[in-house]
């Protein structure tokens, strides 16, 4: 990543004037645009384009909550690049968000319907939480309307929808077996709409911002995989980018919480880490402004961004079977695809399998 000089924005002096009016310093704004270019893996020449895109009229955004815990809303409040204050005051016009908006009741509904009616096809919908389909949708009603009816109306009229968190992406914990309310993700509940999934428990807010900025800059959504997840955020496995990968390759595994290997940051595979089946940029962007991420906290990955993780990555402390020690790149997709069957067969018998590098493994004892 090349860091551009301040000259990169010289052509957009009008942009800088608008920003000055909004009370944002040139330096802060540059930092934001540069950070976004880096997250989206774009060359420095795109920075002025990003700057121009985010300084014009703010796009209308409405945020819906269904079967959720507001964890993704909380995650949004932790945004650091840009900050949440910059997002809601400078980048987007967030007109509806039940948890943090000022009005309630009828007035809140008016805010939502004003956007749906007046900005038809222009606004961005963000959905947090699963949608229960069973028994006519009675398990999640807001103002007497089902989550499904609200989603159809609001997301059906949006330019596109971003599903934040695992619940709206594929059903999340509400859809874990036996899925009593028939919870599904938005894509399944409202077929035919344009959407991007940003799963995770919660989603990482930096990826939400990057998705919006991508759209504002290029007029299109980022390229996605078959699960509708952007490659920039879900293109590689946690295992591929893990800071402890060298310990896996060297056969150095944590055996007990707090043992010498655990304190020295060895691989958590034996403690049940699901990094090899989880596609997420967690290890590279981390959380809370880069403070940490689960493996850094000494705990295995629970594959929170992987479809049905509550069922297929369980038990969380059971070791994954059959993860090759080397050449993971060649087989990662195969492992991902075969996951459901493999885990059903193998994980329940937790502790039965053996590590793949038995020799080095044994040296370790």
């Amino acid at each position, binding site marked *: 990543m090349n860091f551009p000089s301040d000259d990169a924005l010289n052509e957009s002096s009008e942009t800088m004037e608008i920003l000055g009016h909004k009370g944002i310093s040139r330096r802060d704004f540059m930092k934001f645009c540069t950070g976004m270019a880096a997250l989206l893996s774009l060359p420095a020449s795109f920075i002025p384009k990003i700057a121009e895109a985010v300084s014009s009229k703010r796009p209308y955004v409405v945020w819906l909550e269904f079967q959720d815990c507001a964890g993704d809303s909380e995650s949004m*409040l932790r945004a650091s690049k840009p900050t949440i204050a910059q997002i809601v005051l400078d980048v987007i016009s967030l007109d509806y968000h039940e948890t943090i908006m000022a009005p309630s*009741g009828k*007035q809140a509904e008016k805010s939502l319907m004003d956007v749906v009616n007046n900005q038809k096809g222009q606004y961005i919908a963000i959905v947090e939480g699963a949608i229960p389909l069973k028994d006519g949708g009675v398990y999640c009603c807001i103002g007497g309307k089902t989550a499904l009816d609200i989603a159809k109306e609001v997301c059906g009229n949006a330019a596109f929808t971003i599903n934040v968190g695992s619940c709206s992406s594929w059903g999340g914990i509400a859809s874990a077996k036996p899925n009593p309310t028939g919870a599904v993700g938005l894509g399944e509940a409202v077929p035919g709409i344009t959407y991007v999934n940003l799963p995770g428990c919660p989603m990482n807010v930096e990826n939400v911002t990057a998705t919006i900025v991508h759209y504002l800059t290029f007029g299109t959504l980022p390229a996605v995989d078959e699960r509708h997840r952007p490659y920039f955020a879900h293109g590689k496995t946690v295992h591929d980018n893990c800071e402890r990968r060298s310990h896996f390759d060297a056969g150095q595994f944590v055996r007990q919480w707090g043992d010498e290997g655990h304190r*020295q*940051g060895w691989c958590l595979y034996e403690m049940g880490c699901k990094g090899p089946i989880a596609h997420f940029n967690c290890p590279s962007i981390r959380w809370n402004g880069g403070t*940490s991420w689960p493996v850094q*906290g*000494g705990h295995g990955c629970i594959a929170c961004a992987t479809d049905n993780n509550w069922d297929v990555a369980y038990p969380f402390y059971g070791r994954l079977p059959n993860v090759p020690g080397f050449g993971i790149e060649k087989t990662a997709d195969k492992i991902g695809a075969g996951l459901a069957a493999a885990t059903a067969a193998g994980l329940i018998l937790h502790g039965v399998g053996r590590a793949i590098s038995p020799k080095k493994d044994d040296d370790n004892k």
Partner: protein
Amino acid sequence: MHATASVRAVENALGLIIPDNARIIRNLISGIQYVQDHVIHFYHLHALDWVDIVSALKADPARTSALAQSISDWSKSSTDYFKGVQDKVKAFVESGQLGLFGNAYWGHPAYKLPAEANLMAVAHYLEALDWQREVIKMQALLGAKNPHAQTYLAGGMSIPVDPNSQNALNAGSIAFMQGVSQKALDFVSKVYIPDLLAVASFYKDWAGYGTGVGNYLSYGQFPNDGESNTANTYFPRGIIKGRDLSIVHPVDHTKVSEYVTHSWYEYSGGDDKSRHPWEGETNYKYTGPQPPYEYLDTDNKYTWLKAPRYEDMSMEVGPLSRMLVAYASGHQRVKEVVDAVLKHLGVGPAALFSTLGRVAARGIETLITAEMLPVWIGELAGNMKKGDFKIHNGEKWDPATWPKEAQGYGLYEAPRGSLGHWVKIKDGKIENYQCVVPGTWNGSPRDANNQRGPYEEALIGTPVANIEQPVEILRTVHSFDPCMACAVHVVDPDGKEVIRIRVK
């Protein structure tokens, strides 16, 4: 946080004592959560019920600066600073895209703050947005991420402690946490508390509304030892009944039970009897109207919330309950701060039983918790110095070591109130699991004896100036820090419904 209650329930079932480091790390994760969460609640979820943003545009920045400097030595208080904030708000309003602040109740007669106080509060609303993101990094360090900390284990924590490793909590982590805790205490003592007192002084009439059921439950918070449900906690365990601060009653978890009389569930033994969580059932059976609908039939079943009771009584939970139990128990620091706040506002302890009391108690608890953060950080550093790196008790990690059957419970005080998890384990698997959460204690529907829950009771008698803009209702419901959307129906004296309000 559910993680604590959950691992604690299993630790209780298996008889596990957690290592001291795990206890301290849990206290720190929880402590910083209290501080951050309460500040977000005050500024971002509740302040706009009291603060009129549009009025801030009319403020004189110089007088705002004078006001700010008269109540605190917080450094961001110059005329230029407030002028900058005002310009920012002005530009935002002039853009015509009001976003989160559109369609609100600006200009409502229930707003009482002078323009300058409104501008000061708006500035701090924005500052708090930045502050909360920074201080919660302590939880991200100890919990691996926030929200959804991931380092909880039955028996301890997964975050290693070792001053001689770069992959564990070390001296650098201690220094980082000391920095965060200082930042936390600075903001709380120099911004939040002065703002709270300033705002409260204009709304003293709210010490007369929103009382609620008058019974207050606290399970106790911040353990001093590693026993799963120890009564040895920094904020004490106890119950206040009927607003009587002269007696603190003990808590016995077996006296907790839940009704489903007005909830969309059915009990095998009939819906007029309550059940203890170990015998709890979650047989959902929706009997409400088919959507879309306008009204719920509140004479029958009308909610997904069960109705938790203690000795068949409704209980309020949350910061007010914790502070009242601590106050009545003679907790020295709580007594000092509560008395100082009451004196500042010129009111007696009875003022605590109110909407305003709930708001004040949250601030008091935030301050005292922020003061404790450095104490726990010091305890962790002390253990490191002694060479105690233990974070997990693994004696029951393998399910093969468990008894054939076991049952346990985990009591915890979440920021918004008492949380309990009850588990029954059979053959290494969960046989029954029930959570009784703060939202159901406070948002409880009526029970078989027709007793109302705290929200319902607290709203009775609330004056509403403009029936179309019932900001007064929001003040009381938001004062509980609700975790959900709920519906309030305002009924005129003839019993005819005049308006329906959804409180977010």
